[in-house]
């Protein structure tokens, strides 16, 4: 079931188009990656979901019905540009932000106690935010985002400012939230984390959505029938042995275990390739190269930019 849907959303700012007919649909209890280069329109779309700005046209649906003002209490938002009141105490501030999300003081206190214990930061309760390091403040910020148990969470670059240990902690928290049924829209430039945690992605470039789908399918779609083979032995001219059906892209003989990358040209199967190779040397490993999200991102965006220029 879709928890959130945007249909043909258009937003213009004084002659500049920020979003041109963008549609996305986010499945419940999944992690949805919202990707795109800087200035593509991601933040505008996120602000529209949060009702910070309204679209010029297009429909927005939350849990199957049109999005309304009250739904804000069921959405949690961690913006990319985020901060806290520097002079305010951590506890007071977390309580204040939770209450602004519509929680009662009692519930907020109870829930905050739970999260502060979970992150082992009870000692910070009475400290002023300006006394915290950036990473510490980010943890507090994360808690204030999820405290009211929203159904939909929007994270814009959540890992910026975190060290690897805390990044891992946060990643696990996000996955746990998903397990509990929370839906997460996740916007980042860090493609390896997208591969790790996202179920679906949408890629926005120059105000248009240019790609979307389940992450495995997207990657599958952009695979180039390339294989990586690691072997032992001597084979000076492997292209000769493989014939014209295969294309050797790379051949690295510098170490003990040698490596080649081979691309199928048409209609060949893995076994055919293996047969040809087995005669030449001892195969150590054989695997298909599925493009990383990073490669997909760069490939798709660059191609799209070229098309727009034309």
């Amino acid at each position, binding site marked *: 079931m879709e928890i959130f849907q945007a249909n043909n959303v258009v937003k213009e700012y004084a002659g500049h188009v920020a979003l041109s007919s963008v549609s996305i649909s986010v499945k419940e209890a999944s992690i949805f990656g919202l990707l795109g280069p800087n200035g593509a329109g991601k933040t505008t779309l996120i602000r529209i979901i949060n009702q910070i700005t309204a679209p010029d046209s297009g429909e927005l649906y939350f849990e199957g019905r049109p999005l309304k003002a009250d739904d804000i209490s069921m959405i949690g938002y961690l913006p990319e540009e985020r*901060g806290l009141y520097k002079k305010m105490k951590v506890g007071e501030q977390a309580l204040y932000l939770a209450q602004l999300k519509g929680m009662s003081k009692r519930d907020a206190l109870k829930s905050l106690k739970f999260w502060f214990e979970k992150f082992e930061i009870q000692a910070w309760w009475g400290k002023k935010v300006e006394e915290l390091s950036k990473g510490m403040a980010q943890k507090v910020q994360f808690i204030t*985002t999820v405290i009211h148990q929203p159904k939909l969470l929007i994270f814009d670059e959540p890992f910026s400012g975190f060290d690897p240990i805390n990044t891992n902690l946060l990643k696990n928290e996000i996955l746990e939230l998903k397990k509990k049924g929370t839906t997460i829209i996740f916007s980042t430039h860090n493609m390896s984390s997208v591969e790790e945690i996202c179920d679906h992605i949408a890629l926005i470039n120059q105000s248009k959505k240019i790609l979307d789908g389940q992450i495995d399918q997207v990657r599958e779609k952009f695979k180039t029938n390339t294989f990586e083979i690691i072997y032992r032995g001597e084979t000076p001219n492997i292209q000769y042995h493989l014939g014209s059906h295969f294309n050797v892209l790379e051949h690295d003989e510098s170490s003990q275990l040698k490596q080649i990358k081979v691309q199928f040209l048409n209609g060949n199967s893995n076994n055919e390739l293996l047969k040809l190779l087995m005669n030449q040397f001892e195969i150590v490993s054989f695997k298909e190269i599925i493009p990383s999200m990073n490669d997909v991102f760069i490939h798709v965006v660059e191609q799209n930019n070229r098309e727009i220029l034309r």
Partner: protein
Amino acid sequence: MNKSILILKREYLTRVKKKSFIIMTLLVPLMMAALTILPAYLATLDDKEERTIAVYDPTGLILNRLESNEFTKFQYIPAPEFDELNKNFKSSKYYAVLHIPVNILSTNRAEMISDKQVTFDIKNMITRRIENIIEGEKRKQVIDETGVPDLEKKLSATKTDITVETIKLGEEGEAVKSSTEIAMAIGYAAGFLIYMFVFIYGTMVMRGVMEEKSSRIVEVIISSVKPFQLLFGKIVGIGLVGLTQIAIWIILGIAITTGLTAFIGGGSAETAAQAQNIMSGQAMGQIATATPEAQNKVIEILGMIGNLNIPLIIFALFFYFIGGFILYASLMGAIGSAVDSDEDAQQMMLPVTMPLIFSIIILFAVAKNPEGPLAFWASMIPLTSPVTMMVRIPFGVPVWEIVLSMVLLISTILGTIWVAGKIYRTGILMYGKKVTFKEIVKWLFYKN
């Protein structure tokens, strides 16, 4: 609305709990009191040092007419001792030597010789007394020369002191004693208070908005509340901080004044009694008559203050206080949202605060002529009316003018809040862009 109250509470409490606020609120009235009271109090402290002044008076005019008192003694010395003192003052027991030259009646000069700087009080006292004596001497000579009988008495009778009483006709045509000076003083004080309040707390709203923008918390907050609720809560919260401060100042002011009046009142009665002992008979008489006169004066002033329309003044004070604050605070909030840096804020603030500064510049002119065209127009134009109208009201302003001014202010506030809300909504999310007024005007036409 509920969330606006949450915001208001935070804005109010964080500011009221600040050390700087508590210190300022308590210290300012104490300092004001200290500044007015301390010099007066110090003046009442007597100079307890005993001094002997040698008087050498070859003219015989002063001789034995300078009377010693508890702390200042006069000792008349003959010529040889004076010569001796001139040569060897240091080893003498005297504080100073007063020399009355033979030709004092024509030169009006006397000398005081000492190895120290003679204190102002002593110099003053001696000058005054010699003046009296010499003046009396000269007058006596003139009277003796003319030979008119009872001239002395007749001359004394010509001394006059004119008072012009301003009497304002009340609504039923009855005469009401009024005082231009009192109306002016109250007008000034009220106008200036509004100016200070609007300026200080309006700037506080701007700083608050800038803080939220630069610390980047604003986007987090407006994902929970509408930008307008945030601005509204902030303006009202900070306005209440201002009202709290002023309420505390008024209460402390009244307490301190009452306390000190009692203290000084008691003190001055004591000094007056002392003074009576010290002064010569003639001076004593003057003091004795002056005291009830001063009391009458105080009663009269109190009466005149009572004749002012106090409820109207207080109502208008609060109205223009709050109205002026909301008007300027919303404009300054809008500026705070549009800028990224302090320098830009300063630059944009100038055109907005100009009318406010203008109303202070014309304060004096308005008080001098509260019925003039400058006063009238400045008290109608909403950006200047809070200060200007407040200056005029103690002088008495026709009701229709007050009503018109208030209606204009309220409608302008409504318009300003709408404009400020629009600018604010766009401005708080606009980073890294140098904003111009032209740009801001464009924001007004952005759809939500």
